[in-house]
């Protein structure tokens, strides 16, 4: 029998070892005490986390030692608090005493000790959540609020003051995510006034001892708040007030910018852009004179033999009111005014002066040209011109002429020498600017009472420096003067008609009497054939064009340069042709033609010179 027992045991051991060999068994891993908590400062519980059990059934034991004694006790209650826990009841709990606690895991192969933990019960208090949460809707002067009340957890003895609890509650609408927190202190009742709207509200409460941990949140309490909030009305009032405010601001802005808006919405009606159109004449009511003023003498297109020195001069206009405007000390303001008044109604301006209009025309003409570059140049010049006008103004002492010399139409190419073209262009440009400078002189200002002076200068040049422009007060004044007085309808017996033959290199406009076409105009006296007024001496203060008689051709007076009152050159005229003050029926278009270019290619200017109109 012993043998049998031994065999059985042996077999069992074999099985055991075989089994053991298959799955390697180990002693248990070290367990760890996770936490200890006391809900009411009278009992406490400790929980641990077991390690690996090594494959074998493992038992856990908790041992503790109190502060003053060396006696080691084992946990009195492993079950009340659940798995892997140890519950210390009232008898086993002492406060203000340090417990040294450790857990031991044991299996068949060994034991493992956890790290010991020192605790004092008074520092590990975490109460149960408050109980019996009640929420009710109350009303305060038509405004609803929530009254929340609760009880402390039944185990916590707050009555004796053993444990002091403070409470906190939170509330939210059912559809919201964020809670609204309220600290309630030691009281067990709280009023929530911060209700924003009706609906279903959720309320929860929790508590904390004076020196301990917060409890878990209590179970949620639901409450339905009826929807009687007059707040919406006040919101509409707010919205209305706000929109009224915005409206006021908009109105004010509108008022500030009426001027600009007016121009934007109702642009000013452009005036007629007919060369020779004179408002004054129209007002005077003399239709005859008015229409005759529209007549522009044709330039003999074929006559100029040399084209190289010809300049095509286009119109630019001076306006009296603009002169007044621009007499401002502040340059910038003037410049600004210049800019702004530029955008004023352009009624009564010459064709070239309207920078919108002429640009189009100029562009049309440009297309006929071979190169596009010139066009861009001109545009650049236009813009530069605009800017330079402001720069010019400091040099002008009194007033400022509003010039539109930017209206440069492209010059048609006649196979001329480009250099000459350029230089003459420059000269022409200088001339044009000198006109403006001349016109700003005080003496001339009054004389510029006429509607406009049509003088357009077309060129192809690049940059003209303001200084040079200002300085050159050349004889191009001629043309201004000539035009100014033309529409007046008066004629002087001494008036002679000249036309520009050409401009030579010394910046002189060569004039020649208009012989061929004079007969077309009634008042056109005939010039003696022998006389040849080919040179303009200058313009005097009476705005009279001073011409010099000289031999035809080459004797040029060099007086065309500087002074606006005319440089006295070598030659002297025996008679002065005053064109300005006694306006004739003829209109002179003194237009240095470049390259013998027909005026046809210059915007408006050309149309005036087309053969349709009678010319002087």
């Amino acid at each position, binding site marked *: 029998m012993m043998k049998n027992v031994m065999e059985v045991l042996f077999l069992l051991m074999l099985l055991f070892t075989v089994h053991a060999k298959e799955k390697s068994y180990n002693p248990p891993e070290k367990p760890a005490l996770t936490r200890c908590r006391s809900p009411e*400062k009278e009992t406490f519980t400790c929980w641990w986390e077991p390690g690996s059990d090594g494959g074998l059934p493992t038992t856990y034991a908790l041992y503790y030692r109190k502060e003053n004694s060396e006696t080691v006790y084992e946990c009195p209650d492993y079950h009340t608090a659940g798995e892997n826990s140890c519950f210390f009841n*009232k008898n086993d709990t*002492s*406060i203000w005493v*340090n417990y040294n606690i450790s857990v031991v895991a044991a299996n068949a192969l060994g034991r493992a000790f956890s790290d010991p933990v020192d605790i004092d019960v008074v520092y590990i208090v975490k109460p149960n959540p408050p109980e019996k949460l009640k929420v009710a809707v109350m009303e305060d002067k038509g405004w609803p609020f929530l009254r929340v009340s609760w009880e402390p957890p039944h185990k916590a003895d*707050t009555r*004796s*003051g053993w444990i002091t609890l403070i409470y906190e509650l939170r509330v939210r609408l059912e559809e919201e995510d964020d809670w609204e927190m309220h600290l309630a202190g030691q*009281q067990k009742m709280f009023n929530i006034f911060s209700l924003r709207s009706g609906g279903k509200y959720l309320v929860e409460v929790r508590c904390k001892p004076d*020196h301990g941990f917060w409890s878990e949140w209590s179970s949620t309490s639901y409450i339905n708040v009826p929807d009687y909030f007059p707040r919406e009305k006040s919101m509409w009032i707010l919205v209305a007030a706000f929109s009224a405010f915005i409206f006021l601001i908009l109105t004010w802005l509108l008022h500030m910018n009426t001027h600009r808006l007016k121009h934007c919405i109702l642009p000013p009606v452009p005036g007629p852009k007919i060369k020779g159109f004179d408002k004054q004449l129209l007002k005077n009511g003399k239709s005859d004179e008015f229409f005759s003023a529209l007549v522009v003498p044709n330039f003999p297109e074929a006559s100029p033999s040399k084209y190289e020195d010809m300049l095509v001069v286009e119109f630019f206009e001076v306006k009296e009111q603009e002169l007044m405007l621009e007499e401002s000390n502040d340059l910038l303001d003037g410049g600004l005014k210049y800019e702004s008044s530029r955008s004023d109604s352009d009624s009564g301006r010459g064709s070239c002066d309207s920078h919108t209009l002429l640009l189009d025309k100029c562009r049309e003409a440009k297309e006929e040209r071979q190169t596009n570059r010139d066009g861009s140049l001109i545009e650049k010049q236009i813009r530069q011109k605009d800017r330079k006008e402001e720069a010019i103004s400091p040099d002008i002492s009194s007033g400022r002429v509003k010039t539109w010399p930017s209206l440069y139409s492209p010059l048609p190419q006649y196979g001329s020498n480009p250099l000459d073209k350029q230089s003459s262009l420059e000269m022409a440009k200088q001339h044009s600017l000198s006109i403006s400078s001349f016109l700003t002189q005080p003496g001339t200002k009054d004389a510029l009472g006429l509607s406009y002076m049509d003088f357009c200068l077309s060129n192809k040049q690049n940059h003209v420096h303001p200084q040079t422009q200002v300085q050159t007060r050349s004889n191009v004044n001629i043309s201004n003067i000539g035009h100014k007085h033309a529409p007046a309808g008066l004629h002087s017996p001494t008036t002679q008609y000249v036309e520009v033959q050409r401009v030579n290199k010394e910046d002189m406009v060569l004039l020649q009497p208009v012989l061929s076409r004079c007969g077309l105009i009634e008042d056109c006296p005939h010039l003696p054939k022998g006389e040849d007024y080919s040179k303009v001496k200058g313009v005097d203060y009476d705005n009279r064009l001073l011409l010099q008689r000289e031999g035809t051709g080459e004797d040029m007076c060099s007086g065309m340069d500087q002074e606006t009152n005319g440089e006295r050159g070598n030659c002297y005229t025996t008679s002065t042709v005053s064109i300005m003050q006694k306006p004739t029926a003829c209109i002179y278009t003194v237009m240095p033609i470049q390259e013998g270019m027909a005026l046809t290619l210059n915007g408006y200017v050309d149309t005036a010179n087309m053969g349709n109109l009678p010319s002087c």
Partner: protein
Amino acid sequence: MALRKTDGSKLLMTVVCLVSACSSVPLSDLLDRASQGSDKLHALSTTLSQDLNSDFPPIGRLIMPRPAMCHTSSLQTPSDKEQALQVSESDLLSLARSLLQAWSDPLLVLSASANTLQHPAQSSISNKIQELQQHSKSLGDGLDVLSGKMGPAAQTISSLPFSGANDIGQDRISQLINFNFLLSCFRRDSHKIDSFLKVLRCRASQTEMC
């Protein structure tokens, strides 16, 4: 808070003097005031301990003296709720006062050594020790006033001499260990004081608080 406490206790004294002629200040208010002070005291000591333990050598925990070595451990205090609730009011107050009194000297030592403490949070610790001292002083004054109202038994104070050396140690480890040990003793004692006063407050209170 210290200022408030000082003002509070001064006000308390003034009020007591004034009112004692006419009527007595309700004890509950006095106790309420005192328990607020003790609450603050304990809270301060807790944060101090946390600051200190933020950078504490692990070895220190092993060789730290046991709490039984606190100089106030000789004072018999209740060790659970039943015992505590059986103690009379005057005894409770006496206990509180004794404990508080026992710490006036050690706090000076702590304050002095906090200046040379080798710890990253040294300045914060030093400031809090100063606050601790002030609070302790004002609470002591308040409790003195209270004891006058609660009978002769409340007047007795057990003497708990502080036998610890004035110097808490030379090297960093021993400095920190001794400092921590003293602080832990104080933390516990301040909790005791707070608990006793709150029990007293509830006993004297006529409100719904308790």
